[in-house]
């Protein structure tokens, strides 16, 4: 077996574990009242069993695949700044938070720092103007009021 099969082995086992978890969760639900004879337990169990079978099939009969090597630094930058974004959104307000997110992502997409800074600030203001001021869908306003 080529070492490329490792991805199917791992993902298959994860799917299998997810299935076991779903079945277990379904079984452990305590139903005091249900409007129908089946109740809420059956569906998680059925779906869990499907996951279990699929996971086993993928893990036991893995197919080799090549993992295309890309630029992980850039992915990490985009993923981390996206993950941090929800936590700075409320304290800072939409425009500053989105400008920071946009700036970091622009760097990940090979933008030069100064234009990226201006571009992402303008981008954040435009989106804010469009959605909050224009359409009245409230976006978080921080200490700056925007």
């Amino acid at each position: 077996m080529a070492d490329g099969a490792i991805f199917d082995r791992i993902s298959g086992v994860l799917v299998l574990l997810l299935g076991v978890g779903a079945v277990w969760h379904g079984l452990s639900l305590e139903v005091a009242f249900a409007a129908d004879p089946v109740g809420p337990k059956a569906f998680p169990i059925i779906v869990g069993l499907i996951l279990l079978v699929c996971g086993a099939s993928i893990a036991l009969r893995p197919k080799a695949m090549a993992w295309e090597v890309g630029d992980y630094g850039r992915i990490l930058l985009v993923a981390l700044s996206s993950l941090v974004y929800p936590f700075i959104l409320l304290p800072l307000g939409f425009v500053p938070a989105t400008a920071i997110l946009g700036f970091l992502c622009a760097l990940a997409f090979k933008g030069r720092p100064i234009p990226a800074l201006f571009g992402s600030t303008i981008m954040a203001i435009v989106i804010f103007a469009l959605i909050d001021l224009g359409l009245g869908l409230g976006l978080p306003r921080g200490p700056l009021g925007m």
Partner: protein
Amino acid sequence: MDALASLAYGFSVALTPFNLLLALLGAALGTAVGALPGIGPINSIVLLLPLCFALGLPPESALILLAGIYYGSGYGGRISSILLNIPGDPGLVMTTLDGFPLAQKGRGAAALAISGIGSFVGGTLTVVLLTFLAVPLARIAVTFGPAEYVALMTLSFTLLATIGEARPAKTWAAIALGLLLAMVGIDGGSGIERFTFGSLELLGGIDFTTLTIGLFAVSEILVVAEGLRSGTVTSYSGGERLKWSEIRACIPAMLRATGLGFFLGILPATGAAVSSALAYTVEKRISDRGTFGKGDMRGLASPETADNAAQTASMVPMLALGIPGSGTTAVLLGALMMYSVTPGPLLFTQRPEIAWGLIASMYIGNVMLLVLNLPLVGLFARLLLVPYWILFPGILGLSFAGVYAATNSSFELVLAVLLGILAYVMRKVGFPLIPLLIAFVLARLFEDNLRRAMSLSDGNPAILFQSPVAVAIWLVALAVLLVPLIAPRLRKRVAHMVDSET
């Protein structure tokens, strides 16, 4: 004629100035997002949904706008395929084969024109078929009870798994994951929490916007960030204009492609990618004199026509049965559900303004798109020049603003990002995302129908197999399910036939 009278009624809805404007807006936006990498129709429809609510659009107007984006994107996608040799999605790979050589020969403008005409032919002829087929199909479906619906949805899942591009076990896993994600929250029938792990935020379930943005916008941006694809725009101006004789030569190819695209588009799972690949292959078998792949007009017209025909045809099961066959129709269905409109066969009798208004708007929209795309294609092509470092942060910012506007919670943003990272990993190891989305949208309907059927029979599962229609659907589903086990070679041969063209 019943259908014609209804269609006339539909036009009376779609031809109001406001709805015309929305159709135009949808068509133009659709072309733009189709042309741009990274955003795509699924994300744009989901992002526009909160706007539709904010503007207080009635459901038929919202659907006219959103559907405009859907079929408009079929027109826009060809631009980067032809000029950059970069297909925006798998359905467009075939467009590059003869489209890019034509652009290299200096006939980019003609290539864009013939593919625009092809998109129009495929889209419009399919709307005509849809007009006459939807109601008879819906009439059959009205008689379906919960048991038949359970069977039908199972059939559509098996089709996704068997015909889809990914390995069946992985597609099934994706479907099950979609069903699982939809179960998070309070169960309607019993008031019990499922898969919430004690989290208050998860009580209401995972928001549709959150899931879609995570699955498609965030993961797409991660994929692009990983390996920046880029190309230089081939000149589209100048060159010899498209000649009548060239259009005439393409007509048989377009008609064949429409038929193929229509039938494949109605089925779940096959969608645009398979139909454009198959149309190209068929056309090559029929007409190739050694010119295909070197810039043959027919090799360009055929997949573009099939692509749009399949896109429009996938509206048939969505409207008539309430079962979406593609990612974008799943999103449209989700939009209808958010408007608390029950999709399905009764739509035609209970909310004709939605069903027929939408169908009529598709006639109008396709004409608008042809008009928009022939002279203005240069404008859309200029969108390709937007640098990535502006485009992708913009898409990300807009996506997050959309999620926040729809849910008012930063928890949903975290969820969207985590789902996006999960989706990115799934894409890397070959799990398809569209079946996950379709399953997520159908899950509630599936479980409700299953439990309703069991209620009718007091818990006896035999009810699922009682009516002849249900039995027939189950048998087809079983046959489809077993195909990869019995005839693994058949799948490989089809795959090979398609692969050998790319």
